Structure formats: C-alpha cells, structure tokens
C-alpha cells in the first residue's frame, strides 16, 4: 500500500533539499535530475504494487494533450 500519510520527519527540510538540487539548472538539466531521482527512489521502494499506485496518483487529473510518435500499421 502506498503510504500517503506523513512519513518524512522534517517535511520543510526535505522540500528545501529537493529544490536545492535543481538550483541553476536549465529545464532539461532539471528533468535529468528528476529522472534519476525517480529511478533511484523507485528501485529503493521495489514493490511494484506500491509503485503502480504512486504512478497512478501522479498521473491523476492530467488529461493527455500530447501524441504518440508511432503509426498504426497494417499489412
């Protein structure tokens, strides 16, 4: 089960550290940091059911407005 209760002892300190690692970065660099962070944390959690719950919550309420770069194929 994904824990959505407070689990970090010092939330303000965590948030400050999270912003700090993005300081002075371009959007691309920031995205690279985020991607690494997500991968590291996901592996640490390990539990696929928890990860899926977190992914679903992250995606919640965001309506897709982009497109997929593959083409439907028929042969």
């Amino acid at each position, binding site marked *: 089960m994904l824990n959505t209760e407070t689990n970090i002892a010092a939330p303000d300190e965590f948030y400050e550290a999270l912003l700090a690692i993005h300081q002075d970065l371009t959007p691309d660099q920031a995205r690279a940091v985020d991607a690494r962070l997500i991968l590291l944390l996901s592996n640490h959690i390990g539990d696929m059911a928890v990860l899926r719950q977190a992914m679903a919550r992250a995606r919640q309420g965001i309506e897709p407005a982009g497109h997929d770069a593959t*083409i439907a194929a028929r*042969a």
Partner: protein
Amino acid sequence: MHIDYQLLRFEYQRSPDQSAAQVAHHPVVVVGAGPVGLATAIDLAQSGLRVLLLDDDRCLSHGSRAICFAKRTLEIFDRLGCGDRMVEKGVTWNLGRVFHRDEPVYSFDLLPEGGHHRPAFINLQQYYVEGFLLDRARSLPNIEIRWGNKVAALDAREDGVELTVETPEGDYRILADYVVAADGARSPIRRAMGLESKGRTFRDRFLIADVRMKADFPAERWFWFDPPFHPNQSVLLHSQPDGVWRIDFQLGWDADPEEEKRPERVIPRVRALLGRDAEFELEWVSVYTFSCLRMERFRHGRVIFAGDAAHGVSPFGARGANSGIQDAENLAWKLALVLRGAAPDSLLDSYDAERVAAADENILNSTRSTDFITPKNESSRAFRDAVLELAKDCAFARRMVNSGRLSLPSTYRASPLNTPDSDVFDAPMVPGAPALDAPLGDDWLLRRLGGGFTLLHFGASAPTMPETVPAIRVVNLSTEEDAGGVAAARYDARPGTTYLLRPDQHVCARWRRFDPQDVRAALDRATGRA
C-alpha cells in the same frame, strides 16, 4: 567447397500436376521457401508426410537479413538434421556489451551456466541458414520443391483448399488438405484471404552496412548509445562468418533512405567507427524501418499462417526468424498427427493459442526494446539517459538498459495441451516449458529425446509401458548416466520422476512417479483427444 548460396539459382521444372486431367491432391502444401517454410517442410517430411513446397522465386534470400540464431533454434535445427552445419559455419557468441558515449556500462552473458550443447547464439547469414535447410530438405525424398511457382489465388473450402499457381508456363491448380502460409511479411495469401496483420510502426530508420574486413573485435554483440562517432543515435556491431561485420546505425525518422544508402554517405559513417585508416569493402547496404504487428488469428480453417506472414517484430532481439522457426516446429507435429488421423483437427487450434501468445510475448519484448532505443518523447529520452548514466555505478539500472532482449523460447503456460501439476516441483520445467538440455557423458539430453512424444524417466531402469498406452519413446536416466546430476537438478528429479515431452520437446506433464493411467490421460490431452 565454398558455395555462394546467394548466387544459387534453381530451375523451374514443369510438374506432372500442370497437365493432369484431374486437379492433383496434396495432403499439405507449404507456401514460401524462407527459413520458416523450409523448416516446416523438413519437420513434416521427417514424420513421414509427403510435402509440396512452393516458392515464387528461384533463389535464396540475399543481402542482409537475419544473422542471430538462438540456442533454441539451433536445438530445433539439430532435430531437423542440420544443427551441426549451422554451428560449424556460424560465429558462436554468448556475450553482449553496452556502451554509453565512450564508456562501457554493462555486459551480459546470455548463457551464464555450462552444460548446454548449444551456445546462446550463433551469427550466420540468413542465406546460409536457408542453404543448409535447403540441402537437408533436398535429401528427404518426400519433399518436392517447386521454384518459380507462385500462389496467385486460393479458394479455402470446408473440405480442402484449391490453390491457383502461376508459373512461367501458365497457371495450374492443386488441391490441398492443409496449406501452411509461410509467404513472408507481405503474405500474398493473407491478402488474398482479406486478412490483416496489425500493430505499430516506429518512426525511426536504421542503416545496415555489412562490411568485409579484417578486424580484431571479439565475437560479441556491441551496442552503443550516443557514441562519439555517431552522436545522439545508437549503433550495433556483430561479427558474421567470412570476415563480414554487421553495423547497424540508427538514423532517425527524418533520414532520406535513398540518400543514406549511397556509398559516399555510408563509408564515412563506417570510418567514423573503425578509424580513418580502416580497410573494408561494403558488402551490402540497406535502410529499414520496422513494425510490431500480428494477425488476430494464425489459423483460418485449413490455411495456417507461420513466421513473418503471421507476425512481425523489430530486429532488436532477433525474434523474427527465431520465433518463426518455433512456429514451424509447433505446427509440424500437430499437422502430422491430424493428417495421419491420430488427432482431431481441433489440435490445430492449440497452434493458434500457443503461437499467438508467443507472438505477443515477442512483440512486448520488442516494443519495450524499441521504446528504449528510440525514445518517443522528451520524457522517455530523459529516463533513458538517466538509466544509462546511473548504470555506471548502480547495479539496478544496468538491468533496465534495454538494447534488445534476445530471443528466448516461449513457455506455453496456459496451453490447453498441458496437464496441470498434481505433484510438487520446484524446477522451472513447468508444463509448457521447452525442455532444457543437460550433458550425459559424451551425449546430450536433447539429442536423446528424438522427435516424437517421449517419456523422460529418472530411475535405475525404464518403467514398462502397458499396451494400453500408445507406443512412445522412453528415455531413462539412471544416476550413472546423469553422472554430474545436472539433468536431475534442472528437472528437479528424484528416483521415479517422470516427464512427458511433446514432439517439439515442450513439457506437457510431469509426476513424481510413473503411472501408466496418468501418462495415457496426459497423452490424450496433449493430442487434443481429451
């Protein structure tokens, strides 16, 4: 003697069917003499059937197509009587290396344990594979191959399929009980029947340069993401026989395929990889795109689709020809039993169930690899690059690096032909799994299994089969024979452990002790009679 299989041309010969008063009848017609059609024909002929193989062309495949042939395929070729030639000619390899920019990030051994007769992979040009299969097919008197015979139309009826065949001397007709459509990705038979293969095409293009040179790269699969000599794209290098190297450059969707094939464009790309002074000759150049797709069903009454006609994947993972050969072997024994009246026609539905599931597994793996190699948007690129960067010092990320998950045989877990376990086992040889090899002194377990239903029994002596059980081959493994205990370990065997293996060497049932009633029931189930 060296034979250039690419240059072989086969005679079109008039067959008596073309002037027969009555439309000639054939139990089974295989359409397409590619690797899949050839393997199907050999397998059918080995079980005693008369097979007609038709091909519209008069030569084997040429240029760069499949090169990587997997362990399971080699084991099938062993059963088809041409495994040794393939392995002797092929370049054996087990190791893959992945580089990011100019740093090695990861390497994988595809066969980390010993005790297998065949290596994880060999690299061998498709024209050799087809050539060796063809040589084998020609040694079997009950296969007739007709070159320059193109299936132009077909009428699939309840009681048989009438084929209209086009030849240089005009059309003729034949009647078949069953047709195996192994007529390739564009499958004219599929089209003639109004059927489709559906899926996705990836927006990317790849350049293949096969170059002949003397080089001292080891016989390994090397894959680069974003190397300095080809920035932002990937490159794959493979060694082939005859001093030929396959280099596969990712080009991106916007590349102009015609332009990119010109030697003036290709040579600098190759030089960038090999070094300015490298001496090489271009053997073959092509630009390809690919799709992951399959037909909804592979069986349509008496017409059964196999290989590229039924499904398609990206080349990363070498799952095209390898999976097609597994289609062939799955289909051949079933068709042989049905045609001999030893199994009901419904047994052929299990081909559809098992191989559609296998195609889905291949497509899933292939799509995942492609999504890694060709990120579809900025965020997939960010994650891809993050995985590659982390892989330098984080073990978990290395497992996510996906440059192609190389072909493994499918386990038919949900097959209707399986008898579910009633005893407890902890080996991976679940019902539906392909049998694992093991060393038996100078011999190998898979070589001992043969090509029919086989009872593999572990114990001091073979059990006696009562007459109520149809005659099947019994292979008994005593502890003396399985001296290293490798077979017993791989099959989690104790004295009395009994496996029933299908003609395609997949497990269909297993027990802790031999009971003829159980064997009989499992055989009935595995042949569609239960």
